[in-house]
């Protein structure tokens, strides 16, 4: 203000001086012009005294003119007076126009321009908010943040060979890779491209010191996700990445997000992105045209996102991840060096549906996605050879349920009276109830002899269930064509469980209607046959389930109540207050006869106690369990090994369901895995387990599994 006043005063003084000078000149000029006019009018007269000065120049001029040129005697201004006036008018016009325009701009429209200038001067820069942490049920951090030096380049650096070469040399990244990263527009066309994450301090220092040699290159300290346990629970936790323009358009209202921000792409990072993501801080800065911040005017700090607590129990998850990895790829992470090619384990808390552990193999390290997954890794993870590590087999893998289904189909048989606790069947190792001449085999080719339902379940005798299927088929007039399927639906097979993860598979209960539709183009195939019933009743044929569905269904057997499975336990805000906690939700109360349920439970308990190998394994752990194995036959592949169990038998707390693709027999491969994981969760509850460690991501390598001497199914 002081300066403005001084400027105004100076302006006034200067203007006054100018006006005085001009007035002076005008007065003098007037007297002169009057004189000139007069003398011109009376060119020959000497004139009065006052015109003496006018006379003299004429005379002098005459003198010089005479000696140098033939100029006329008259003063030029005299003859050309109208032209002087015209010039004067032009000058006046120019100045008046300029003044009028400047008046309108500075005084009339001044505030409009002032606000535009303000906009020019200040820009508001968002500072990204750190995402919240992800903890296990007991407060062990599974996902944290750390700061990372990130080298960024403007998109047009891609055309600057010199800069790319320098970056390549300094960062030690091949030229073509640097160029590819700068050209990669996945984070948005305008946004800066990540050249290197986690750059070394001295490389960054070199780039900063030689900024002139790196036009368009900047270095930022970014908060990136940190995974203390590597690939532990990778599928459940998910990964983050820069938000794409598509995602930006589909964001929920109220989500404070900008291009360049990280967003959850899968797992709970994606499901609870809204909560985990924080609110941007804002810095109002004065920046020059090159974007250099001259002054920070004001600043609000970003708010860190809320922390998410999961039902997962870290050490149990670790045990499950480790057991799977050691089973399938014991040698350097090469799939095929152990048993099976892939697998999944789900541990479910029966009381509230909480997922205590969720493991899928092969797995990946979510940190691979920090700063963008390298193209070659992405390509590798999408090959058959790598067995698709990004797939969460626990919820997205659809498999024939195999003999684990028998627990539910026998419930149906009891419900409809096609089996009672006293009914018996005779197994000779093969069965040709449909009189096709091509008998269906029991897995035990030598036959089980005479069995009741308990024996049928304990020995997993197929022939017993073929007979039951035939009973359903023969009585469809009375019980209905889809009585078995309708009953299975009580256990919510063929339906989403609604777990708080995306990518869940629905599974399938085959029905005549489904088959007609599915094979609409092949009318002979589309007919519902008795064979479909015998396949379905042992969980083969067109039956598809996910490991999570099996886990939930066994939980329902164990207690009669199926809880909605969920990963989230609670959400706490940055100050540690619980802002959201998961309310247990009953999916279904199984509406069945309690005697029938008791019989099936007893039979599943029999599986654990009457089969010597299973009994030995469980006894070694000291686990009182009810369980069922399964061996799924998949065309063109080795058998898939299933195992489902709940324990303790008297007071069921947890269900473990696991599958090992191409793992062979359920009791050989899957049962020991499931038993080990069940032991882990029970031990954890007793306070006897706290081992944690890093889980390695997939190497993407695999070899053909060692040739199994296929002995057929062994469950």
């Amino acid at each position, binding site marked *: 203000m002081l*300066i403005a006043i001084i400027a105004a005063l100076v302006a006034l003084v200067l203007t006054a001086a100018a006006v005085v000078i001009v007035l002076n000149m005008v007065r003098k000029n007037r007297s*002169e012009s009057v004189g000139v006019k007069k003398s011109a009018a009376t060119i020959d007269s000497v004139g009065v005294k006052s015109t003496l000065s006018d006379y003299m120049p004429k005379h002098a001029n005459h003198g010089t003119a005479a000696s140098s040129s033939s100029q006329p005697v008259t003063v030029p201004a005299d003859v050309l007076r109208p032209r002087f006036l015209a010039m004067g008018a032009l000058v006046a016009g120019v*100045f008046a126009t300029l003044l009028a325009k400047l008046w309108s701009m500075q005084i009339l429209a*001044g505030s409009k321009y002032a606000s535009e*200038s303000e906009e*020019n*001067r200040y820009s508001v820069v968002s500072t990204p908010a750190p995402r919240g942490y992800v903890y296990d049920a007991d407060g062990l951090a599974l996902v944290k943040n750390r700061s990372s030096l990130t080298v960024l380049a403007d998109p047009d650096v891609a055309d600057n060979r010199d800069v790319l070469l320098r970056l390549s040399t300094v960062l030690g990244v091949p030229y073509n890779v640097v160029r590819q990263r700068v050209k990669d527009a996945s984070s948005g066309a305008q946004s800066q491209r990540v050249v290197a994450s986690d750059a070394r301090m001295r490389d960054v220092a070199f780039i900063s010191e030689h900024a002139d040699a790196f036009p368009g290159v900047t270095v930022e300290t970014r908060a990136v996700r940190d995974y203390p346990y590597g690939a532990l629970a990778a599928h459940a936790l998910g990964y983050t990445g820069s938000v794409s323009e598509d995602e930006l358009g589909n964001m929920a209202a109220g989500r404070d997000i900008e291009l360049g921000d990280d967003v959850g792409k899968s797992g709970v990072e994606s499901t609870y992105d809204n909560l985990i993501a924080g609110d941007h801080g804002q810095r109002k800065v004065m920046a020059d045209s*090159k974007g250099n911040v001259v002054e920070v005017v004001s600043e609000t700090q970003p708010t860190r996102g809320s922390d998410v607590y999961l039902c997962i129990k870290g050490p149990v998850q670790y045990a499950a991840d480790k057991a799977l990895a050691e089973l399938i790829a014991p040698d350097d992470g090469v799939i095929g060096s152990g048993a099976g090619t892939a697998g999944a384990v789900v541990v479910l808390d029966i009381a509230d549906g909480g997922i205590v552990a969720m493991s899928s193999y092969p797995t990946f390290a979510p940190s691979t996605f920090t700063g963008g997954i390298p193209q070659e890794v992405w390509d590798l993870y999408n090959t058959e050879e790598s067995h698709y590590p990004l797939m969460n087999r626990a919820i997205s893998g659809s498999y024939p349920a195999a003999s684990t289904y028998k627990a539910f189909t026998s419930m149906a048989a009891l419900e409809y009276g096609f089996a009672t606790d006293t009914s018996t069947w005779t197994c000779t190792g093969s069965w040709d109830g449909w009189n096709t001449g091509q008998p269906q085999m029991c897995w035990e080719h030598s036959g089980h002899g005479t069995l009741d339902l308990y024996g049928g379940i304990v020995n997993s005798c197929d022939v017993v269930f073929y007979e039951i299927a035939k009973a359903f088929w023969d009585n469809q007039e009375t019980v209905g064509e889809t009585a078995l399927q309708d009953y299975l639906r009580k256990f919510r097979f063929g339906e989403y469980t609604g777990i708080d993860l995306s990518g869940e598979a629905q599974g399938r209960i085959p029905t005549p209607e489904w088959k007609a539709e599915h094979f609409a183009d092949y009318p002979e195939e589309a007919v519902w046959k008795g064979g479909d019933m015998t396949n379905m009743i042992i969980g083969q044929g067109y039956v598809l389930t996910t490991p999570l569905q099996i886990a939930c269904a066994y939980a329902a057997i164990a207690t009669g109540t199926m809880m909605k499975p969920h990963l989230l336990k609670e959400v706490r805000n940055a100050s540690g207050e619980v802002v959201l906690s998961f309310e247990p939700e009953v999916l279904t109360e199984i509406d069945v006869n309690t005697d029938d349920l008791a019989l099936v439970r007893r039979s599943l308990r029999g599986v654990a106690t009457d089969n010597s190998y299973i009994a030995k394994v469980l006894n070694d752990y000291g686990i009182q369990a009810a369980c069922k194995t399964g061996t799924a036959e998949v065309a063109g592949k080795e058998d898939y090994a299933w195992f489902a169990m709940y324990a303790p038998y008297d007071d069921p707390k947890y269900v473990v369901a696991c599958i090992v693709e191409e793992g062979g027999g359920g009791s050989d491969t899957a049962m020991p895995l499931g038993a080990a994981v069940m032991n882990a969760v029970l031990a954890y509850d007793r306070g006897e387990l706290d081992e944690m460690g890093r889980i390695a991501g997939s190497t993407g390598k695999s070899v053909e599994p060692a040739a199994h001497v296929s002995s057929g199914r062994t469950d």
Partner: protein
Amino acid sequence: MAALPQIDTIKTPDAAVVQAARNARRARFNVPFVVVVALLVSYGLLIVYSAVRVDADYSFTRQLAGVAIGLVAMLLVWRFDYRKLSDFVTLFLIINVVLILSPHLPVIGVEAKGAQSWIKIGMQIQPGEFAKVTVVLLDAAVMARYGGRLDDPREYCRALGIMLVPFACIMTQPDLGTGLVYLFIAAVALVMGGARPKYLLITLAAFVAAVALVFAVDEVIKAQTGEYKLLQQYQRNRLLVFINDDYDPTGEGYNLNQAKIAIGSGGLFGQGLFKGTQHALGILPEAPTDFIFCVLAEELGFVGVVVLLALYAALILICFNIARSSNDLFGMLIVMCVVGMWLFQILENIGMDCGLMPITGIPLPFMSYGSSFMVVNFIMLGMIGSVWSHNNASLGKRG
């Protein structure tokens, strides 16, 4: 001085003679003229200092050196009797042609921004700027020969033809901005030299027709070859920006838009000296040279603008009086041509900043950064001073 009567030197000085001598000393410098020029140059240096202090590409010392060289040049020219130059039409023509065409020479010629406008002898200079001096002298000398009355059509055409030569030369560089300054100087010379109004109007009409023809022919060329040849694309863009206020505000219209914001945001009193942000933050490009007026308007506001225009008006008024009191046509024409040149550059430079004129790179007299033009302006001042001295000084001595 050559005409001083012998008798003066032997006569005993009486009171009148003493008074005359005092007048003569005072007459060596026209006081209001010198004061206004001093204020104007100081004002310009202050604003240039504000503009260059944040930009390492410019040096305030260079600008001061320009003023110093200019002062010396002005004093030398001031002492020189301009009347000796009135007969050298052919010489000025040759000097003009050589100067303006010199950037085409192989060794010293320098091409920049798509124009062959610079030469490098030790330092880089723009001969087209210095040629403004000889253009003024040429045009004044041509018209002075007609004694304030040019009625003969053949003579008119001849004079016009001679005066168009510098324009034709500068268009080979090409430099339309400077060419327009030459044309305006020629126009002032024609008007003030007493050319018949009818001829002037015909010339004006022909000029407008020629401009229209250039555009028309360019369209034809484009239809034939697919691109404009006569007018460069940047010139077309500037015209588009000028005609349409909102044309491409981040691209071609960016400079104009930012210039207007700088001026407008100055308001009545401005942001304060050295407090302008438009240029200091690098938002307004070319601030010390082409857009120096915006720096002034932003920092000192409407008040500062009025002061500048008042100083210009005072200078022009003083020059008008010097021209009117000149006893010979040549001197009067020199002064008026210089005034015309300033007027055109003021109009064009300030006019383009506030969107009244298309954008061209014409500097603002005494304000813009650039030592070539500063020296040229001081030479012009020296010429005006010479006209004044060699009319009024002789008057004093006579008395």
